[in-house]
């Protein structure tokens, strides 16, 4: 057992523990922080696997973007410090049953599946290579998905603006 293996197990435990806390914590703010930990843990796992670029993207977009957004929205909609309502007992019971079973089932399938031999090939993901491929139209080029995703971002930005933009007070009175 070498250091790399130990690191993996520590990371895994950290990710899963933080995730569990993120979905069970009663204070929403704590929940958000645990989510942050999970995401950072995942980034670390990517780092451990040697795909630094994905790890960086993970940190920039998730940690820097999504979690911040979530925390903002918590501020907008919640008085801090309040405990969140408990989940409905009946539903949590059913969920736990279904999910424990589902997990056992899915993992058993994964466990029994014979994946191909692990290829010990150097897996060096250089940022330049990703950049080139991302905009290449040749083989292994990802320019089309890149463009599609950019339209998606544009559209969802417009959607967000339309929906979240506050209606002017004058109009609001008219509505009421």
């Amino acid at each position, binding site marked *: *057992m*070498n250091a*790399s293996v130990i690191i*993996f197990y520590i990371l*895994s435990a950290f990710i*899963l523990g933080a*995730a569990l806390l*993120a*979905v069970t914590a009663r204070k*929403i703010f704590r*929940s958000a922080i645990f*989510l942050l930990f*999970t*995401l950072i843990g995942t980034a670390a*796992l*990517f780092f451990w696997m040697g795909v630094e*670029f*994905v790890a960086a*993207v993970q940190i920039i977009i*998730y940690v820097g*973007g*999504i979690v911040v*957004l*979530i925390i903002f*929205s918590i501020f907008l*909609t*919640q008085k801090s410090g309040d405990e*969140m*309502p408990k*989940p*409905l007992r009946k*539903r949590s019971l059913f*969920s*736990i049953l279904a*999910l424990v079973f*589902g*997990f056992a089932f*899915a*993992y058993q399938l*994964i466990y029994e599946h014979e*994946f*191909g031999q*692990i*290829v010990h090939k*150097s*897996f060096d*993901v250089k940022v330049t*290579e*990703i950049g080139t*491929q991302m905009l290449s139209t040749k083989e*292994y080029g*990802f320019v089309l998905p890149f463009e599609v995703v950019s339209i*998606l*971002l544009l559209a*969802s*930005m417009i*959607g*967000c603006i339309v*929906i*979240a933009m506050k209606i002017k007070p004058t109009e609001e009175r008219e509505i009421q």
Partner: protein
Amino acid sequence: MNEISITHILFVSTALFFIGMYGLFTRRNMITMLMAIELILNSVNINFVAFNKYLYPDKLDGVFFAIFVITIAAAEAALAIAIIINLYRSHDSIDVEDASELKY
């Protein structure tokens, strides 16, 4: 560099996936539901990267997929939060039990 079997990594991702689902099923606060979805998407990313690295390292399909999933997660989260904020304006609550007028 390691002796970790791929199934171990998949254990982490699958567990994360189902933890996320648990959050989605039971959390009553909409924002926490959204967080749970982020967990689900994260676990999928681990899958993609792990498969790519350990089984099919010739091409970067999995890595690219993961990057796109992250982007999509961002777009989805942004829109969902916009919708939640709009809903908060009319409902004065982001408890999911309060948003169940449409039924039967």
